[in-house]
């Protein structure tokens, strides 16, 4: 067995033990518990998980759109979690977000040229050439011509076109990082491919770093360099995309991949078939109630995210045999 090469590390974002908890009438929701990971400059990190996994909350907490209860988020040398809103604001143009619902994220009363220019009016220091020029460039990057679409309003565009306008709005600010929260899940297959390709092209042309949250395993595989899997507020596994799809180490990753439509992986038993409530997550490993490999230790000890060769991390006491298969396909 040859040792796998460690992928190069150049972290732009570092998340350390991030915790997000909400108090509700029924108790405390453990939305994100102890998330620790890095995002390298210029990579696309795909974040997958099912509803309640905390993937969207994690993204929002990193952007300080949702209050965190503990831990830290660093962007370069800046500790974002130490900043108040006033000091956070100047950083926002470089950390842009693409939301799930393309129609709801655009103001229906404004013209496309004004929507795309809005950020540049709020942050004049992001204007490198001129507002008009950067708006036109942003629209051009998503295959739209400002002369044709500039004076129209969101209502006259389809969902896919609205999502492209939202991407143009983000790109006009010349951001460093694009936070994409389910950017194509409201779109039809024939249209989603175009939006995914645009994000990919913009990333390469502008050297962006991309966080890409999705529940769709096929979409994540097509865009990501590395993939992080979350379950019930915790990170299960993080690894280069080829490795995690070829040979998952965490039993939950294995269940997820074998459940995907079109997957040729053999079916995996799913003991309860239901995700427990984030109000009262299981002790120890949160996946243990559904895990066919769970033992007593899984209920007593929280498995830490351990580093494995090849840049993989897994939070499991009894990880699956991932080396043989990954080695064979590598």
């Amino acid at each position: 067995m040859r040792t796998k090469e460690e992928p190069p590390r150049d972290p732009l974002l570092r998340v350390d033990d991030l915790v997000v908890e909400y108090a509700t009438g029924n108790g405390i929701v453990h939305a994100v518990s102890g998330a620790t990971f890095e995002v390298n400059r210029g990579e696309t990190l795909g974040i997958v998980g099912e509803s309640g996994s905390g993937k969207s909350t994690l993204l929002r907490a990193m952007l300080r759109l949702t209050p965190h209860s503990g831990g830290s988020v660093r962007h370069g040398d800046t500790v974002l979690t130490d900043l108040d809103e006033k000091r956070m604001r100047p950083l926002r143009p470089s950390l842009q977000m693409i939301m799930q619902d393309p129609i709801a994220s655009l103001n229906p009363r404004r013209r496309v040229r004004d929507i795309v220019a809005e950020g540049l009016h709020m942050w004049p220091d992001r204007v490198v050439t001129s507002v008009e020029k950067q708006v036109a460039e942003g629209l051009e990057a998503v295959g739209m011509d400002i002369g044709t679409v500039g004076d129209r309003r969101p209502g006259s565009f389809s969902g896919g076109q609205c999502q492209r306008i939202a991407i143009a709005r983000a790109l006009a600010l010349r951001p460093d990082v694009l936070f994409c929260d389910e950017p194509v899940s409201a779109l039809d297959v024939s249209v989603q491919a175009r939006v995914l390709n645009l994000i990919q092209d913009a990333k390469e042309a502008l050297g962006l770093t991309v966080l890409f949250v999705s529940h769709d395993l096929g979409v994540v595989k097509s865009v990501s360099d590395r993939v992080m899997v979350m379950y019930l507020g915790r990170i299960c596994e993080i690894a280069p995309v080829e490795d995690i799809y070829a040979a998952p180490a965490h039993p939950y990753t294995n269940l997820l991949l074998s459940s995907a439509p079109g997957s040729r992986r053999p079916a995996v038993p799913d003991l309860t078939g239901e995700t427990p409530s984030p109000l009262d997550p299981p002790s120890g490993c949160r996946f243990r109630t559904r895990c066919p490999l769970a033992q007593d230790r899984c209920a007593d000890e929280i498995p830490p995210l351990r580093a494995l060769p090849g840049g993989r991390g897994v939070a499991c006491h009894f990880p699956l045999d991932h080396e043989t298969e990954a080695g064979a396909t590598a």
Partner: protein
Amino acid sequence: MTDDTTDLLVVRGLRTTLRTSRGPVTVVDGADLRVPRGSTVGVVGESGSGKSMFARSLMNLLPADADVTADEITFDGRELDPRRPPHRHFWGTEISMVFQDPMTALNPVRTVGAQICDPLRVHRRMNRRDARARAAELLAHVGIPAPDSRLDQYPHELSGGMRQRAMIAVAIACEPQLLIADEPTTGLDVTVQRQILALLRRLKDEHGMAMVLISHDIALLADEVDEVNVMYAGEVVENTGVAQIRDETVRHRYTAALLRAHPDVDAPARTRLESIPGGPPDPLAMPAGCRFAPRCEHARAVCATETPRPARDPRTGAAYACHFPAESAEELV
């Protein structure tokens, strides 16, 4: 030619027109569907393709002013008038339907038990006690633990997956011969989706039921069905076996483009997907000729003027309507 003894449902030339504020809109335009007994037939299409309207037309679930006509609808050997069922218990006992969103399809202010009892009381004339006992059996049958206590719960007290199981229990309560499932797992998590699909498969086998599975996800259909009908802009543009979907030897250019745009979980990582330019046509201004022609990279002049005639692949038996169909697997790659 179709053999009446093996086909449970035969639909030819179904046309559904809705009245809207912008004028009449033909949402299903001459669609055919053949469901052999005991089979699972898929219908795939994107939003606005007419796949749900097709299902609703068969279930008589359209507004009263909708106009449904067909050259032929034969169910279980009987000719059907699309507006008039052969007997008042037809829908619910012979054909029933599972909807996409159980939160809106189930009544939020009535208990799950009451809603499973409805078809049993109405169609099977069961008394309250027998219906309730049967409802508990049905809940157990669809894999809901502790069914007796679940009967008195309301839909919002169940998880999404459990709600969908409860709706399936309502649909199969009277043991229909045909179950139409319209996006039954859309909005559910992928691990829950897997369970619901396994449940539908099991029920189908146990009851000898036939199923029409409608989905936007062609990979999901490829796992579950025997043949696939591809809808685009209100028309069924291709009917093909699941083998042709799996090995991408489909004939219609739209089907081929759809397969290439689909992010496949087993494809190599970081594969650039091929998008289809433009968007689906406005149903009030359908293009002349082939409706996919404005978005088709293989379209030539004739595609914009002449409606392609249905053709049949001599090797696979697939039916398609395309002037310049894909010829080989190599061409699709």
